[in-house]
């Protein structure tokens, strides 16, 4: 089937393109993926808000022509929660990196999951702090090299999807840049889900992570993603030993629960007006 021709320029601030990301950085692919998802859903640009924190991934708000907000480190979800509560009719999308979402903003992340507020969080997981020089992040795999782990990382890494699932998010999925069409689909479903959605997209940092871990070129990084990824259906039939070092991709949670702004409207506002 022929792919639909998409006018990417419609969703971009063309004066800022080419973007600042390194040659071959996967973040550009995820930006295109978000555009394709938004285009397919026909979201109104003026009714969509894109919020980000600090980091390479968070530069995305400068390039995309929505209502955008570039906030402080890790606090993107806190700002997004404010936007959603003040204007529940807006589509709020948050773009965040692995460090931004799970280290500096770790608490905001779990509490946004807990509340089930209608926000779509897209985590750009490149396993490293790319902007500041390649320090290891909470998702850096054990044994990987980074600027601050020259003998290999010994910290066990976070599994963002399992964390979101345990904290109560109603849509949780993981894709990677290699199979980017799957990411389009997950982002689309995440935006459609009425509740908190977490889409983790495994991406690559050829400059810092790849160079230190024998993945020299961007193409090597993409092939590595293909090698280590296992679909959730296949993973169910595999033993824990076989799953060692693998990254499971697919939909982890897809359920419906009452959304936070609706609950707020129903309980708090009606009570304040003396209706109940």
């Amino acid at each position, binding site marked *: 089937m*022929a*792919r639909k*021709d*998409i*006018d*990417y*320029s*419609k969703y*971009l601030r*063309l*004066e800022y*393109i*080419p*973007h600042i*990301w*390194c*040659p*071959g*950085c*996967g*973040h*550009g*692919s995820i*930006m*295109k993926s978000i555009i394709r998802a938004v285009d397919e859903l026909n979201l109104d640009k003026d009714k969509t808000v894109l919020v980000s924190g600090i980091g390479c991934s968070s530069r995305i708000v400068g390039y995309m022509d929505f209502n955008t907000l570039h906030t402080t480190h890790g606090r993107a979800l806190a700002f997004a929660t404010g936007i959603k509560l003040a204007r529940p009719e807006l589509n709020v999308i948050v773009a965040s990196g692995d460090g931004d979402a799970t280290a500096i903003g770790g608490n905001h992340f779990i509490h946004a999951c807990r509340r089930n507020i209608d926000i779509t969080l897209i985590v750009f997981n490149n396993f490293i702090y790319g902007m500041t020089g390649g320090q290891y992040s909470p998702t850096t795999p054990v044994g990987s090299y980074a600027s601050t782990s020259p003998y290999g990382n010994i910290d066990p890494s976070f599994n963002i999807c399992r964390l979101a699932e345990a904290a109560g998010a109603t849509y949780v999925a993981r894709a990677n840049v290699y199979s*980017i*069409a799957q990411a389009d689909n997950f982002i689309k479903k995440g935006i459609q889900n009425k509740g908190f959605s977490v889409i983790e997209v495994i991406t690559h940092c*050829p400059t810092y992570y790849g160079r230190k871990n024998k993945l020299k*070129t*961007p*193409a090597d990084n*993409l092939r590595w993603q293909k090698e280590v990824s296992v679909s959730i259906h296949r993973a169910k039939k595999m033993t824990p030993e076989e799953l060692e070092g693998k990254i499971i991709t697919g939909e982890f949670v897809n359920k419906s629960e009452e959304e936070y702004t609706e609950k707020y409207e129903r309980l708090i506002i009606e009570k304040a007006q003396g209706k109940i």
Partner: protein
Amino acid sequence: MMAETKEKKHEIVIIEKNCKGCEICVEFCPTNTLGMHMGKCVVVDLDKCIGCKMCEIRCPDFAIFVDNPYAENFKKNK
């Protein structure tokens, strides 16, 4: 029927100022249509292109478009 499909050439637009020379498109092109020249992506043999759009979907820099009528929009801005 064969002759008909052969005649139909695909249009590949490369936005040179956007290309950073990461070689993702060259590596993932299934028919070796693309190549590198002076650190930028170039079309080596247009006849080989099957229009799969693998390069367009993989390019992180909005630098290559296949049969996309909106590609020219990226040429306009400074």
